[in-house]
């Protein structure tokens, strides 16, 4: 019987062959925490009397959530984490280096890896065909200490996508549509495998967006097979030798199979306060925007900013709107500076912040006031997500966000493209 991506990857990380539903101790290739989950992990390791990491070169700490620190408590957390890295030899990704998921995909994660991160969006690296999944601080501490974790092999779901994206419609719109279809808990404990001609045609940027949001329908991981585009991405990042082709067998069995045709898809919006509260943009009542946010582990890559800049070029942000732009990594910041993308966004009236999670996590760089609305490219719109439970978030593609910044209200990007 053929094997899925999940079975192929996990099968090389366990002592014996695994099948769906098995519980197994799984070898971990790369593990990480960020500044919100790292301090607790360091304290858990101390409570476990663990002083040495199994392989420090495969463990990383990313200072991305409150970065640079806006408060003394968080500055102390950063200091605490820097000391941990010095003591153990773990990789330190400093303030300004970027978001854990974005930087780990640029520098560390390889196709076929098992990756655990103390951040729910660790699944982003499924786009590189890594079995990457989020866990809590204690679980990731165990992975750093011993080089393994335990897992239940999840049931794979095939998400087969065909058709060409219409003008103004992107991978983000498809993922919002998918989550609206299966619902926020519809794929709990499952593994999504994104297959079909439309998925093969997607750039890595588009794939990262989809894999990133797998957790928003409960999935443990969202995987893409690795292919020539994966190889090109790794080559572009100076590590082509990390490429390995991994494909699901033709006769692999899936618990469920979904088939979508995106050729009739419209720009989609996730309305407050749940990610699965999705509607085509034409069905959403008028929404005035106070803030528009471009960035995050979902849409913080160069192609995302280039798309927004293509719409904002030569235009001005509406006077009632604050446009915040946060590059996902130092590399993206540099590339977007060199090719003029950030200059365009700046001249349109945007604020370009340093790389990191930015306003998405509600800590700094764009906390909303009572009653305000943010139209954002991030992955989550739960009440309080951007730091104020009395504010509302609408999730959209970078194109819809850019159109909204110009119009001052939620706007269909198709009028600008």
């Amino acid at each position, binding site marked *: 019987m053929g094997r899925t991506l999940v079975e192929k990857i996990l099968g090389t990380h366990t002592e014996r062959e695994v099948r769906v539903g098995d*519980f197994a*101790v799984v070898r971990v290739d790369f593990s990480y925490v960020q500044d*919100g*989950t790292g*301090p*607790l992990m360091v304290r*858990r390791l101390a*409570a*476990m*009397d*663990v002083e040495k990491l199994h392989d420090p070169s495969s463990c990383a700490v990313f200072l991305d*959530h*409150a970065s640079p620190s806006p*408060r003394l*408590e*968080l500055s*102390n*957390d950063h200091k*605490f984490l820097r000391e941990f890295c010095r003591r153990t030899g773990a990789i330190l990704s400093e303030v300004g280096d970027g978001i854990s998921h974005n930087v780990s995909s640029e520098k560390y994660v390889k196709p076929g890896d098992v990756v655990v*991160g*103390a*951040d*729910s969006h*660790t699944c982003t690296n499924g786009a590189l065909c890594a079995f990457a999944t*989020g*866990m*809590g*601080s*204690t*679980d990731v501490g*165990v992975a750093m*200490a*011993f080089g*393994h*974790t*335990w897992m*239940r092999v999840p049931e794979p779901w095939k998400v087969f996508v065909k058709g060409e994206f219409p003008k103004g419609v992107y991978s983000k719109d498809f993922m919002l549509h998918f989550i609206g279809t299966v619902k*926020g*808990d519809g794929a*709990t*404990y499952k593994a999504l495998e994104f297959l079909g001609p439309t998925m093969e045609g997607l750039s890595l940027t588009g794939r990262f967006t989809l894999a990133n949001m797998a*957790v928003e329908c*409960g999935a*443990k991981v969202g995987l893409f097979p690795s292919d020539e585009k994966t190889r090109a991405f790794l080559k572009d990042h100076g590590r082509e030798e990390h490429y390995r082709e991994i494909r699901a067998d033709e006769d692999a069995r899936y618990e469920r199979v979904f088939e979508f045709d995106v050729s009739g898809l419209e720009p989609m919006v996730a309305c407050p306060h*749940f990610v699965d509260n999705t509607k085509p943009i034409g069905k959403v009542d008028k929404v005035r925007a106070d803030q528009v946010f471009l960035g995050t582990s979902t849409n913080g890559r160069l192609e995302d900013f280039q798309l927004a800049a293509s719409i904002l070029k030569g235009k001005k942000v509406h006077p009632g709107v604050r446009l915040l732009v946060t590059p996902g990594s130092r590399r993206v910041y540099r590339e977007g500076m060199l090719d003029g993308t950030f200059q365009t966004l700046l001249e349109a009236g945007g604020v370009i912040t340093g790389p990191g999670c930015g306003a998405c*996590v*509600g*800590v700094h760089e764009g*906390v909303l006031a009572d009653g305000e609305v943010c139209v954002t490219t991030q992955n*989550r719109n*739960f*009440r*309080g*997500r*951007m*730091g*104020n*439970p009395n504010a509302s978030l609408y999730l959209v593609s970078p194109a819809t966000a850019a159109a909204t910044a110009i119009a001052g209200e939620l706007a269909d990007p198709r009028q600008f493209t």
Partner: protein
Amino acid sequence: MKIRGKVWKFGDGISTDHIAPGRLFHLRSNLPELAKHCLEDARPEFVSGVKPGDFVVGGRNFGQGSSREHAAVVIKMCGVGAVLAKSFARIFFRNCVNVGLPVLILDTDRIEEGDELEVDLASGKVANVTRGWEAGTPPLPPVMRTIISDGGLVEHVKKHGRLKLD
């Protein structure tokens, strides 16, 4: 072990932002202070009213969102005896087991705010004392039962010197 307490009823989709809000990110290294805001954005009166042994009862997908283990920790620090819900988000569920906060899956439509429950943690039986019914809950997988019986993941590792699940 049997626990008896009063029900605090919550709806569907309670997220980790309801439980341990992002705006209090700076309190994550000060858990006693963070616990004073537990579930504040869902029910502001929860923290001042909750008694040791009370139950948090949710609907679907309890604990969705962020991987922050702090969410499980602060519910436990409030003295909550167990969390009961129709379904749980994956990471939150695993975090609860790791920190030793009991989690039970059952149809919570038959439980109302203020009901008195008696929960037998060993058997997973839930008795609604107020409404006079009893129900079983699905057992946790053996891996999780081992971690719980060792007193959480930290204690498990201390006891065995590693992850030991077979």
